């Protein structure tokens, strides 16, 4: 009788205390005024904090949207063929291929990003050789531009896109494809008219599951980017750890979370509330 509640008690309690409660605290901190030196925060119901922070840093929000969006689109395009191939033609080696997709996670993401900084460096292995062969001008550089940030984000978040896509494509009943062929469908139209529409919910899920985490990323930009690329995650981190402005940082964090929630609810409205959870 009590079984489900007892089983879910430890997990539920941990998540409530260390996930939901901090979110409420974050909302509360947003409304306070904090003193960087003493660390004192006083509740002043400062609702204007949200609009103040957003107006100060709206450019960084836009940067985050742009970089995360571009990286996610790239990831979607890049992951779809591989997800399709593993799902339809992976056979009994599916687990192995999925594992290969997850392999980068075994190395710290800071190290991965640093190595990308090296690979993309102005006179490094890749660009240096091209420059020596006079295929590129000497002043050409990828690092310290927005492109490097997008490349880094796309790399680090690829598994976040590929795995939900794989789940989505794997669910498609292969017999549907056979039926299409039986009805004289050419390969291209079978793909475009049968497979693709069936993967649309999966595409949206993969988009959300990549875009939202990438929105809050800042390490890629700090290691690979230059001036004018700052993402909102960088500002939040700076406020919490360097400026010691807990109120401002919490307000920005709350706005970021609100954006994420809007995306999720939009998905739920359009495509049904339960489906996105199935793609995890």
């Amino acid at each position, binding site marked *: 009788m009590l079984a489900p509640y007892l089983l879910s008690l430890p997990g539920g309690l941990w998540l409530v205390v260390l996930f939901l409660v901090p979110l*409420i*605290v974050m*909302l*509360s*901190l947003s*409304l*306070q*005024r*904090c*003193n*960087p*030196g*003493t*660390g*004192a*925060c*006083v*509740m*002043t*119901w400062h609702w204007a904090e949200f609009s103040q922070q957003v107006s*100060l*840093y709206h*450019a*960084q929000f*836009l*940067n985050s949207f742009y970089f995360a969006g571009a990286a996610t689109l790239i990831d979607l395009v890049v992951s779809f063929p591989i997800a399709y191939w593993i799902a339809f033609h992976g056979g009994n080696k599916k687990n192995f291929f999925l594992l290969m997709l997850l392999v980068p996670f075994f190395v710290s993401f800071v190290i991965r990003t640093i190595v990308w900084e090296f690979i993309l*460096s*102005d*006179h490094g292995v890749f660009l240096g050789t091209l420059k020596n062969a006079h295929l590129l001008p000497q*002043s050409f*550089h990828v*690092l*310290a531009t927005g492109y490097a940030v997008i490349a880094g984000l796309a790399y680090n978040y690829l598994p976040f896109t590929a795995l939900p896509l794989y789940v989505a494509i794997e669910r498609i009943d292969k017999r549907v494809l056979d039926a299409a062929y039986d009805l004289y469908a050419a390969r291209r139209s079978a793909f475009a008219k049968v497979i693709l529409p069936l993967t649309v919910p999966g595409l949206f899920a993969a988009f959300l599951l990549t875009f939202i985490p990438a929105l809050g990323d800042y390490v890629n930009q700090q290691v690979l*980017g*230059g*001036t*004018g*690329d*700052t993402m909102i995650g*960088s*500002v939040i981190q*700076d406020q919490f*750890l*360097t*400026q*010691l402005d*807990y109120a401002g940082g919490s307000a920005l964090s709350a706005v970021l979370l609100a954006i994420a929630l809007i995306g999720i609810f939009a998905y739920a409205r359009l495509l049904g509330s339960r489906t996105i959870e199935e793609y995890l």
Partner: protein
Amino acid sequence: MTERNSSEPNESAIDPSIWRGLTQPRLSRRQLLSSAGAGAGALGLAGILSACGVKGVTATSGKVKPGSAGSASWWAKQKPTKTVNFANWPYYIDVLKGKHLSLEHLAATTGITVNYTEPINNNIPFYAKIRPSLAAKQSTGYDIIVMTNNSPALGYLIDFGWLTPLDQAAMTNFYKYAGPLVKNPAWDPGNKHTMAWQSGWTAIGYNSSVIKNPGTSVGILFDRKYAGKVGMMSDPQELGSVGLLAIGVEPATSTESDWAKAAKKLNQQKSDGIVRAYYDQDYITHLKNGDTVVSQAWSGDIFQADLNSKYRDLHLLIPSEGGMFWTDNMCIPMYSQNPRSAMTVMDYFYQPQIEAVVEYYNDYVCPVPDAKQVLLHPTGWAKTALKEMYPEIQLATSVTADAPTVFPTQQYVKNSRSYYQYKSQEELTAWNNLFVPITQGA
């Protein structure tokens, strides 16, 4: 770094009324509502949200009450202990294949083992890490920490009474050997709380193979010739100060309108695409691999880079407008477990013999001028230690001794500029509001 009048050394520079206003609770909406008899439902959420407050700290007057930590009677009761936990910045002490010769000698002569760690990469984030323990009146786990004078963090620590006042009687080596630049400094008159570890300049580093004629002005950082290849520092104190130098203003005596003009110049520099990026300590990596050809730089880093044949082209330029002179200071946080031994360790480093060995590795500005003689004519333990380190450093000790960036000449002292001392939290906030968006800006 907070301003102090020499006549009233104990007055807190940050007005107590400011602290009071910021730390005492105001009448919250909850209290208003409850007195007006508002509905319980509205109180519920309001109650939850307003229950989350963060206790803060009020500034002390700076006076040391007799019997309290740091007073003479308190120091008399402190016993020596066997261990000292020393937190410092990275690459700031002599190291040879993972060993620290100066610390080994310390253990041999005094029996104190130093647990030396390098957790400090940035003043304020480190301050943020130790503040909770200090506010809770608990040990931070460190007995000696090193804070820079140009950072608000040192000011906060002093103002809130979170640094143990030093035992002046135990500072024999210090008072005998400390140089004029670090004795009785502006940010800590009478060396009540700090003893300098090293000093340095924030000036300009440039690649001489690319820039043949750097000139003598700080304007080289703003030169369009090097657009996209200029490195600037992300620290708002460093960035703002160089901006002030660039518009011909002395940072120490600047006003808020000067700051606005400096910010305008820096914003212009950014929008003109001159800056490649705003760096922390990693500016040196980018100078080394050619991403930047000229950058704001710390004197010791350039010196160390120069030692490596691959980076011999990197040179330091202290512009005619001046180089910002900063000092990293050893201090003892409150509630330390080993204060007596910490004093011994701090004073130990003021022996010329010891500083010579440390300086041979560090190449920053030495707080002990007599170490120069030791480097020129090493004797005793220093001679053995320097000889042991030679294969790794590959530099004659006389080079270190003669370097004006290590033992400053009059000319270099003349070119040194001090940072601005904030008189209140508001001033600091105003400064940061001008310069932080430049580095964090999109």
